[in-house]
């Protein structure tokens, strides 16, 4: 695939899942968001500011910085909650992954629908452990905090590399690159998907789609 992919792995306790996920997703999104664009005339624009907010975790010794946008926070919280519920309900050994995919849209000709082409995918693999006593929980609290700190630095390192980003769009194309639905901040188009336990193989629908595509491409 013509897209970068980064994998982060964390091991957490069940109640820490949502905070850990939020911390990582928000960190990534912080660096992948810009202020709102204000186009002056065709071709030039100015960028609004992005506010940041500190967010403290209850179950982890950790504080992360996020974009101070309630809307964005709400969207992400919702996704993380679903993931967490799915993970708790699955009853399996507590493995799952959530991925944050940045993509751009490409207008296609009539017979095809618009393509969403990912350019960067962050996959966070979560391993949930059960702890026996308070002592261990306390240790875990600190340890996960440290680990998350490392991950955040990882993320920043990756983002600092001078690699491909979609080109800054003109006014007409801004929707193809940025998510303009939020009123205070403008992240790159993103999509959050999750998967409980890394089940073998891809889902049936993707297989079918590929099969049809392949037969056509023969």
């Amino acid at each position: 695939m013509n897209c970068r992919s980064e994998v982060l792995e964390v091991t957490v306790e069940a109640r820490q899942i949502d905070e850990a996920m939020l911390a990582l997703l928000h960190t990534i999104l912080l660096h992948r968001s810009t202020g709102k664009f204000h186009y002056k005339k065709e071709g030039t624009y100015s960028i609004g500011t992005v506010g940041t907010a500190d967010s403290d975790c209850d179950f982890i010794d950790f504080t992360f910085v996020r974009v101070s946008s309630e809307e964005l926070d709400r969207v992400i919280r919702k996704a993380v909650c679903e993931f967490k519920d799915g993970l708790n309900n699955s009853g399996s050994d507590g493995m799952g992954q959530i991925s944050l995919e940045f993509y751009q849209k490409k207008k296609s000709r009539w017979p095809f629908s618009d393509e969403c082409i990912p350019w960067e995918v962050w996959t966070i693999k979560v391993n949930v452990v059960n702890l026996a006593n308070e002592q261990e929980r306390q240790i875990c609290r600190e340890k996960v905090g440290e680990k998350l700190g490392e991950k955040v630095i990882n993320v920043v390192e990756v983002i600092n590399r001078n690699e491909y980003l979609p080109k800054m769009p003109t006014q007409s194309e801004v929707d193809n690159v940025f998510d303009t639905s939020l009123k205070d901040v403008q992240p790159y188009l993103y999509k959050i998907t999750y998967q409980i336990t890394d089940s073998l193989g891809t889902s049936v629908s993707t297989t079918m789609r590929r099969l049809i595509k392949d037969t056509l491409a023969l």
Partner: protein
Amino acid sequence: MAHFDTEYQRLEASYSDSPPGEENLLMHVAEGAKSHWHHIENLDLFFQRVYNLHQKNGFTCMLLGELFELVQLLFVVCFTVFLANCVDYDVLFANKFVNHTDSSKVTLPDALIPMDVCSARIRDNGFVIFVLIISGVFWLHRLVKFFYNVCCYWEIRSFYKNALKMSMSELPYATWQEVQARIIEIQKEHQICIHKKELTELDIYHRILRFKNYMVAMVNKSLLPVRFRLPVLGEVVFFTRGLKYNFELIFFWGPGSLFENEWSLKSEYKRGGNRLELADRLASRILWIGIANLLLCPVILVWQILYAFFSYTEVIKREPGSLGARCWSLYGRCYLRHFNELDHELMSRLSKGYKASSKYMNCFLSPLLTVVAKNIAFFAGSLLAVLIALTIYDEDVLAVEHVLSSITLLGVCITICRSFIPDKHMVFCPEQLLRVILAHIHYMPDHWQGNAHRYETRDQFSQLFQYKAVFILEELLSPVVTPIILIFCLRRKSLEIIDFFRNFTVEVIGVGDTCSFAQMDIRQHGHPAWMSEGKTEASIYQQAEDGKTELSLMHFAITNPHWQPPQETTHFISQLKERVHREAAGAPSETHPLSLSESEPRSLVANLLAGPSSLASVHFGCDNSLINHAVAGSDGASALRSLSPVSSSLHLRGSLSMAQRASGFTGKAMSGSGTDAHTVSSGSSAWEGQLTSMVLSEYASTEMSIHALYIHELHKQQSRGELSRHTWHRRESDESSDSIPDEVRSDHNPQSKSFPRSHTFPTVVSSPSATSTSANSSKPKGQEEEKSQSQRRHSGPATDHFNAVGRPVRVARVPMGGWAVDGQAAPRHHEAVPEESSEDEMPPHIHKVT
């Protein structure tokens, strides 16, 4: 906190209605997406399409071609049904009389059955309905595909037009290398691949040929079950399009295949942990696909027959000889293909070798058949002559029943017979021919050289180069045989396949998972017997057979002069080029005048071909080695004739003196294909100024031929135990350069040293009875090999490949199960290496010595 929030809000608000502060604002200029060619999702498919469009000469040609194919298909089906059901053959054959009032002539419409009767007949016939339904489904599939392709290739067309700035009309005249260079240029601007700032030629090749490289590697490592030992027929190769399609279906893109998508292998196949389970799963999948094949067999069979009938009958009628013509078999194409070689490169190479190959095959016309054919041709000819003479006298003869058909039949008969009668004025030199062939096809098993006149060699060559008729027959048989092969042969290999994909898949950034052989890394996959001695760290399992890695590398470097290989690889290439160069340039001044023939290019290539042996002959100058040299010289002369661009390019530069010409030519050749951008940058020289890329590519193939011959020559000497000059010199000084384990060396060295040099070389040629009736100039070599072969037969398979007695057994390092083992073509079966443990990969000689 709250304080900051409010401030932020306020500032934001001031922006939205802010004409007063505008001059202070930082303004950005949007780049926009100038073209939508940046960041293409599926680069594999994209590059494949770009390549296809180039190969099909542009959009219009492709569109028309596909359109006509569709129409043709429709026509074929309808016409067949029509012929079978709607024609009253009795009328046509005049067995039945038609009552006409006006004239007695039978017209074509009379022979047609009325529409309603005809359709009723079709409706009643179950088989016809069956065929119609199959073809209908097939046709609809093709139709949908056609529309899909039109849409896709329209995009590619606009890519050519807008991004590459090439119009469709100039596309047929642009080489692929030019297109590729533009794509690489484009990447800097548009970033079609986002992982890298710049694309390399190899990236593009990898993406286009990802699966083909796997296939080539699997054939190279004899993983695919395509060779069979049958009770009556002996060893046969069965590899048809249907079989190939099934292999690809199983491995690459079918449901549940090993690959997740075009560019990555499924992650569970990359881990060694549950290989047994995966192998089981693969085996059951192969079984299912085999069964599906078996069920669909009648459908495919009908289709194949129809298809063959309509595509070949016309050709056979037009030129009956075409069935006797030959073509490169599918197996041959896989066997002869380099890693990273595009279709057009392979085809042009094979086409160049076609003439020599068919000549070679014609050397082996059976004398018995010739006698029979001559006589049949005589009788058939006399009959035909009489009939024709009669017809000329009075054409009413034609109206007599069966006269026209017997004339046609006799004509066909004579043509067939003639193909069995050799040309009277042809002198056959199989060894030379084989060498010319080698110059183009670049690969052949070791034991062919020197055995070119033997029937076994011919048989094996015919596996690569088969009769067209055999090809068609195999295709027709394919639907029946394919399921059998899948179920009984391929299934057994599932574990090896799993191991193969795990061991030989590497993930390359910006490309995805590719076959590691296709990286052409000498260190990883080099074969010590093929020049990469000391450089390779590959175990026997990892070595590519037949010098594939080395030759592919040279081929790729020569066809893509701008490609910048990794450090060590560059070293290997430049070293090899320098060696070829040195042999070429140095030899004319050093060699004995006897070996210099009068025309300059001849001796040049002769020296190239003679390789190290020519220099050896100088050092140990004695009569026999000179014979040896002359042998190579004549080979070279014949090889040269096929390498016409060399001579023509030499004529171009007539102003230079001979010696300069020789060295100059090779020098330019080197710089022309050098690893850096010599060709483009230094347009100052008149010579390079003339070089359009078209010339360059023709020229590159010649250079590649020379390199291939050189490498083979070197390999032959090496594996025969005749150490090349370079190693002889070094031998005394540093033993380690030669990577034979010490204990082996100490066993054999005294023997080889005890021979004076002038004896060791001649032993090869000195057998007085060397001349034989076939008057082949390279007889000595053949003789020697026959000798060693017969010895081997006596002593059983324990002795190694073609080494003369008492020579250091270097061939022990040729991996087990190579082509050369035990005389004629034992099928190469590699012991599967279960894990990557080194114990299993012990080269055989270790066991032998200790």
